[in-house]
C-alpha cells in the first residue's frame, strides 16, 4: 500500500540495512533509495525497500504518527497495512529465520501492496 513505514537504521551492509521498527529489527533493501544511508538515519520503508530518507526535522512527528496508528486494533485496516509494511522485511535474529506467512490476529494472511 502507499503508506510505507518509518524505521531507524541500525547497521548497513552493502545494499542491506538492519532497521529498527519500534523495537522490531528487520532487514530493509537499499537498492532504490537515492541518498547514502548510515546508522542512525531514519528511512521510509515500502514493501521491504527504503524509498526515502526522512529529514531530521520530520523524524519525531513521523514516528509518533505511525505509533498512533500501530496502537489501533488488529482489525483496523490502516493499522493492518502498517503492520504489513513491517512484515515486508525479513526478520533478523538467531539464524535470521522468520515465518513469512504468519497470519494476522484474525487468521488471515495479508501482504503489502500499492
Amino acid at each position, binding site marked *: *500500500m502507499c503508506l510505507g513505514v518509518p524505521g531507524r537504521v541500525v547497521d548497513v551492509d552493502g545494499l542491506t540495512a538492519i532497521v529498527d521498527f519500534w523495537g522490531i529489527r528487520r532487514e530493509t533493501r537499499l537498492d532504490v533509495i537515492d541518498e547514502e544511508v548510515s546508522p542512525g538515519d531514519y528511512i521510509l520503508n*515500502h514493501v521491504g*525497500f527504503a524509498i526515502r530518507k526522512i*529529514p531530521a526535522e520530520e523524524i519525531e512527528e513521523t514516528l509518533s504518527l505511525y*505509533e498512533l496508528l500501530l496502537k489501533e486494533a488488529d482489525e483496523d485496516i490502516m493499522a493492518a497495512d502498517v503492520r504489513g509494511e513491517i512484515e515486508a522485511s525479513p526478520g533478523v535474529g538467531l539464524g535470521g529465520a522468520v515465518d513469512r506467512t504468519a497470519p494476522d490476529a484474525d487468521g488471515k494472511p495479508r*501482504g503489502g501492496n500499492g
Partner: protein
Amino acid sequence: MAEPVRSTDAGLRAGAAELKFRDPAKARELAGAMESVCEAVGREVSVMHVCGSHEQSIAKYGLRTILPRRLDVIMGPGCPVCVTDVPEVDEAVVLAADGVRVATYGDMVRVPGTVKSLADAQAEGARVDVVYSAAQAVEIARGTAEEVVFFASGFETTAVATAAVIVADPPPNFSVLSAHKYIPPVMEIVAEMPATRVEGFLAAGHAATITGSALFEPFVERHGIPVVVAGFEPLDVLAGLLKLVELVRDQEPLVVNMYPRCVTPEGNRNAQEQLWRVFRTMGGRWRGIAHVPNGNLRLRDEFAHVDTRKRFQIAVERLWSHAPSALTQVCICGDIMAGIASPNDCDLFGKECTPDAPVGACMVSNEGTCKIWHQYGGHPDL
C-alpha cells in the same frame, strides 16, 4: 548515533504530533475555509483522489462529515489490487493450477478471476505463498529448485521494488508475472470521462515520492485541471483538498506539492532509473474502467528471461468457457473505481458482498473503496 526510540518518549511525542496533524480545531478551520471557497465557486465541485490510503484516511477520520456539502471527493482507481484485470488473475490461477508455485501479495490471493481466485486454486491443492515483499519471493526461489512465479501487483511505488529484485540477478527459477499499473495514464482517461466530471486531482504522496511532482505538469497543461500532491494524515488530506478547491475557484491549472516533507519536484531518480530500466508502459485493460493506453507496466525484452509470460505458455482461454457467477454480474466495482458510483449504490454491498465473502475486488483489498466503507462507513447520511 541516536539512541533507540523508547516507547515512553515516543508516547510523549505522539501527543504532540496528534496536535499537529490531527488537531480537530485546525481540521474545522480548514473545512471552514473550504466552505467559503466552495461558496465562492457557487456550484457543486467534484475532485478525485487516486489512492487507497487517501480513502482510508478520509473514511477512518470521518472527514466527509466536515467537508462542504457541495464538495464531492470521489475515490478514483487508486487501488492497484482492484484494477488488476480478470485475465491477469486468470494467468496466475492457471499457472498455480498447473502446479507452478506462485508467490504474491496477500490482497491478491482472494481477488476473483473469471471462475476462481488464487485462494480457490489453493483450496484445490495449488501452492500459493503470501509475501510482503518482492525480496521474499526471491528468497523462496533461492530455497528451491522448482519454478517460482512472483505475481506482482501495485502502482509505481511497488513496481520499483520488483524492478530492484529483477536487476539484482535473481535465481534462474524466479520469474515475474507483472500486473503492475502506472497511475498517470489512467488520470488522463478519468479526466476525459464525461460521467465522472473531475475538476481536480489529489495525487498520492508516496507514488510522487518516487516519480516527483513535476511529472504531473504535462497532464495539467493538457487537461487544464489542477493536481495537488498530498500526504495521508487527516490535516494533510484537508490541506490538500483546500488547495485544490482554491485552484478550481481561481481556474488555475497548476501542480502544487502539499507534501514537501516526502515529495520533491524531481522525485527519487535512482528509483526511476531502475523502474524504467526494467519496465515499459503498455496499453491494457484496468478492471472495470477501460483500456488504458500506457497504463500497464510490463517487462522490457532485455528481461525476457525473468518474464513469466515469456517463460510459460499460459493457457488462460480454458477458463473462459466457464460463465462468471451471477453475483459477479451484479457487482459494480468498475463504476466505483471510475468514480461514477459509490458502494452504497451497489445492491450487494454489505449483504451478499462482505470482506469475509467478497464478490468484487473492491471488497478484497484494504485499499478497496468497498472494504474501506464497510469498515469505517463512507459518506455519512447527514
